[in-house]
């Protein structure tokens, strides 16, 4: 264990002199993630125009292997081209993961900041209400809500948004609480500015970076969950092309064509990892402290 003194406080002496923060940069891994996320978004936007109709299948050519002529990723049980389905499915899979996070980011930030800036009772009311949603195992709650609302991509988005709001709100609330007693907030209140103005111009610039970092990583999680709901039959319905549904579709053939199920799974994994790495990169870039994953 030579490592110990290495981690003994590497304490650069406190300097109240000019502390010029080093220009923060993203790591190479994070840059790769930026490229991957860019590619995924590009595929989602223009992909459907580049490949054939994902729903046209030729049953005589079913379960073709990966690398077959004309079907790079093979075909599925109904003879449909897997690559086409994967590319076209990108849009829906991405949206199903992205939209709940956007929704949760806005609502969660609003709730968290409101709770953080209001008095004891306002704070307690909001946070205790969120605690109720926190008390459910997240995935199960999403499944229950989706089941109650019935299948369909919009219902799956609502279900995921509901479970993502409380953690985002907690991140925003923690950051807001950290700020309220700081000197500059006191100066802002003493300036006579309205609450809204303080929230918007003094608090939000500080709350936004950790929320953005957190939500970027959440997108990865949300993509996995959204595909999972489809996998359980609670998301989009067949024959729509979507990654989770493809996994569940291809499961029937795991013995005859084992790679088939791995292809959409890999797509989900890559997208999720990319957003997670991007989140880490943004954390370094925006100088947000610590792990923010709930």
């Amino acid at each position, binding site marked *: 264990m030579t490592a110990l003194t290495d981690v003994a406080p590497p304490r650069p002496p406190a300097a109240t002199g000019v502390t010029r923060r080093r220009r923060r940069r993203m790591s190479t891994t994070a840059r790769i993630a930026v490229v991957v996320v860019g590619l995924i978004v590009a595929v989602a936007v223009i992909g459907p125009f580049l490949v054939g109709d994902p729903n046209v299948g030729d049953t005589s050519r079913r379960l073709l292997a990966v690398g077959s002529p004309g079907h790079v990723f093979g075909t599925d049980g109904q003879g449909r081209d897997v690559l086409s389905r994967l590319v076209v499915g990108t849009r829906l899979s991405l949206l199903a993961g992205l939209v709940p996070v956007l929704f949760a980011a806005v609502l969660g930030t609003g709730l968290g900041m409101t709770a953080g800036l209001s008095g004891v009772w306002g704070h307690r009311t909001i946070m205790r209400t969120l605690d109720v949603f926190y008390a459910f195992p997240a995935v199960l709650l999403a499944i229950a809500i989706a089941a109650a609302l019935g299948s369909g991509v919009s219902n799956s988005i609502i279900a995921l948004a509901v479970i993502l709001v409380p953690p985002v709100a907690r991140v925003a609330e923690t950051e807001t609480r950290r700020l309220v007693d700081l000197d500059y907030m006191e100066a802002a209140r*003493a300036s006579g500015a309205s609450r809204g103005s303080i929230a918007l111009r003094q608090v939000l*610039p500080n709350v936004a970076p950790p929320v953005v970092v957190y939500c970027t990583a959440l997108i990865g999680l949300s993509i996995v969950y959204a595909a999972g709901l489809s996998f359980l039959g609670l998301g989009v319905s067949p024959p729509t092309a979507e990654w989770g549904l493809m996994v569940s579709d291809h499961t029937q053939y795991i013995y005859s064509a084992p790679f088939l199920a791995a292809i959409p799974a890999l797509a989900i994994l890559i997208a999720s990892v990319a957003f997670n790495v991007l989140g880490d990169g943004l954390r370094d870039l925006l100088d947000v402290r610590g792990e923010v994953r709930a």
Partner: protein
Amino acid sequence: MGARSNEILLEATGLTKTFGNGVRAVSDVSLSVRRGETLGVVGESGCGKSTTGKMLLGLLAPDEGEITFDGWPLAKMRRPELRALRARLQVVPQNPQTSLNPRLTVRASIEFNLRVHGVPRGERGERVLGLLDRVGLTAAQSERFPHELSGGQLQRVAIARALSTSPELVVCDEAVSALDKSVQAQVLNLLADLQRETGVAFLFISHDLAVVEHISDRVAVMYLGRVVELAPARQLWAEPQHPYTVALLSATPGRGQERIVLSGELPNPAAPPSGCGFRTRCPIAEDVCATDWPALADAAPGHTAACVHVGRPDHAVAQMLPPPTVPPRAAPADTADPAPSVPG
């Protein structure tokens, strides 16, 4: 000199504040600040000086008591009136590292104040540069973020922000405590210059007695949520009346006099002792001290102290210590080697 006069600008009477955890942070504090003067408030941590400052700024509502600013009662004012009044009453906070929003540039921090007080967008830029110039900063520094500035520069920005609305009173809450001494002197000079030029009054809250003595016209000493002594600065140092003040002054390092070391520590503010809160540490406490916290009594014109001994002919404070006669930092020569004088 500015408009230093006897006109009272801010007056607080009987301020009391108890927090939710039962800590009575401030009890029955009455203070007044005159136009253009500097009122120093000293005390150790937990004495209620910062809570008092927050109440005077209108950031914290007192449980009891009243605050009037230029004759206006703070508690009864409506929001638009209060906002207009806030322009006249500003704050310079303590910690240079947190007195400015880390995500805003220097310019944006000051413009926030200007915007609140209705300075049109077009004029703000010029006003910011003028203010920065006045506190000794350059236009180039207006686009910097707080982490790019030194502690002294940050406090200069905080002062510029406070001055942006041409206030009549600025509450300086430990505004120079975190600065290095060589930089602290610059900021103290700046505050004095600004007071001379604009006639602004300061409420100067600090635990640093030397700084308070230097900058204040009058000084209030607080202990356990109360003002225990209030006097013109010179007089307080020359003839302290409250035993706590005597001990506090003597404990200040570097004054070259004998030191009175108080035993024990501050009592728990949630469960203060009966009677005078200082009696458990007071070297001259008597039985009567356990019954009531004494009211502020006149010791001399403009000099009051809350101690039963005040005004008695045999005031025991006089026996605690001879008044400090040795000038500060003129070291006694007998302990040192004879230093040969070297030209230069």
